[in-house]
């Protein structure tokens, strides 16, 4: 392991998990939340000609997924640098 200390390794993993959980909650809320569970409520709202719940299920969730992965890539690269475990 290339960490300076055991503590560093633990802190790195903790931050990694925290980021993961944050992004996964957005993932869940947008798809299962807006697209499925709350779909009837959101369908009352009109959004560029779509019912909003329907839009989340067929378009919005997909866009969100892409953004989530790219945020993750960015944050993880920063994290790797911070703990200098990035690959040279």
């Amino acid at each position, binding site marked *: *392991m290339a960490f300076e200390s055991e503590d560093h390794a633990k802190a790195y993993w903790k931050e990694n998990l925290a980021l993961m959980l944050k992004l996964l909650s957005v993932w869940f809320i947008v798809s299962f939340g807006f697209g499925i569970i709350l779909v009837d409520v959101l369908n009352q709202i009109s959004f560029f000609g779509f019912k909003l719940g329907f839009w989340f299920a067929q378009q919005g969730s997909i866009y969100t*997924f892409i953004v989530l*992965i790219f945020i*993750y890539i960015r944050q993880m690269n920063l994290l790797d640098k911070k703990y200098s*475990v990035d690959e040279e």
Partner: protein
Amino acid sequence: MDIKTLTFIVVGLTFALYIGIAIWARAGSTTDFYVAGGGVPPVANGMATAADWMSAASFISMAGLISFLGYDGSVYLMGWTGGYVLLALCLAPYLRKFGKFTVPDFVGDRYYSQTARVVAVICAIVVSFTYIAGQMRGVGVVFSRFLEVDITTGVLIGMAMVYFYTLLGGMKGITYTQVAQYCVLAFAYTVPAVFITFQMTGHVFPQTGFGATLADGSGQYLLERLDGLSQELGFAAYTEGTKSKLDVFAITMALMVGTAGLPHVIIRFFTVPKVSDARRSGGWALLFIAVVYTTAPAIASITKVNILNTLNGEDQQGVLYEEAPSWVTNWERTGLISWEDHNEDGRMFFSNDERNEMNVDADIIVLASPEIANLPNWVVALVAAGGVAAALSTSAGLLLVISSSISHDLMKRTLMPHISDRQELLYARIAAGFAVLIGAYFGINPPGFVAQVVAFAFGLAAASFFPAIIMGIFYKRMNSHGAIAGMIVGIVFTLAYIIYFRFINPAADNADNWLFGISPEGIGTVGMLLNFIVAIVVLQFTKEAPKEIQELVESIRYPRGAGEATHH
């Protein structure tokens, strides 16, 4: 030129391109055959993953199913994209760091057990066979229409092409071929979509167009018109659907989790040089996939309106059969659309009540959509080429998984450790041959629509691999007994449920008899939960994973020192 000639030319040209690339990048060694020597850049890998991933199910079948299911079809859209979030965040970087060739390799080593490896091999084979059955059907649909033969002949021709093509290259050949296939299929999918969106709404982008107002001057929103038409004809309102919330939830979850557990997708992340590249590949893959997936619902809704208008007429009174549009007569030859004149008025009528006289197979919608919209013949030919690209790329990836599971994981790592690389490759090729034959059988006798059969494969992956891999990374105490018991319970339960409702007692296949109202497509979610529960319970009564394994798990959590995927 007529459609048939054009199709021959376009499909022929693209096929020549793939073969050319496959020969140029021929696999020289077993390492090349399985993981392309670990030297594929993330964008190319993302594109190849996208092609690998988007199968006949995505290309040919999905929009058609959405067209018939309306809102309920969203399960495929969210399920097959959302899984990439799980894959990129929870699995890909760690599996890359682990650095093995196949999923059974990971399971076998992480759970320090040959039994675990063999169970994983069997799961991989079951999942991949189910998946490939769907692909063969898809290829069959394409060939039967454009060569004007019946569906069985179509499947057999497709089978021969897929086998011939997989033998040429291993992973290395496949990766670069798949980049080309992605380009062909994305182009073939979006071009007709732009045409039909423009025809219907005057918008250029399908993604916004299907929410827009109709171009016929009525000022009505497209989806509003579709909801109205659907209800008049006895279908559910398009934007609302009929499946229960729990079932929609379960299917979506099974597809997402299954995506993250599919052996032929996971193997992709072993082919990049670094851990950070594995993360990046996931992002690129989803971006490329989204091009098709955000277009699909537009094709679905617009084509549904087109179908209703061309079968029933603008006034929804039925169209005389003698005046039937050419797409109807063309597809009748494949047996995938048919008309029975119940009320003997000589007019076709398509609805979801006693007035219905049409039988339209959902799998023809995408392929027929350019014909239905009266687009030029070259667009029709292009779509055929796209369908072939989609089915070929995925079948090749799957055959590779099946053959590597048998030759590498089962023969080399378990039964006959002393065989040479050359013999290993030979076994790989024989295994691929068997896989193709079995796939063809199910292609001729499909247990459902292409996308549904494929959904079963995902359920099986969700119920078997996903929990084992997730706990392998995030739960370092998890031991071999727990993992093995979990995988067995998960896959047996899920498979039994699917087989019972699809083959043994299809009459009972409806919401009243389903467990908690969850359909066979969504049951993988329950299988996955059972897998987790069983594994954790068993762990409580057995010894936790040995210290060196726990250290191994620690080490895959940090990116540095990934090295190339290794053989050992």
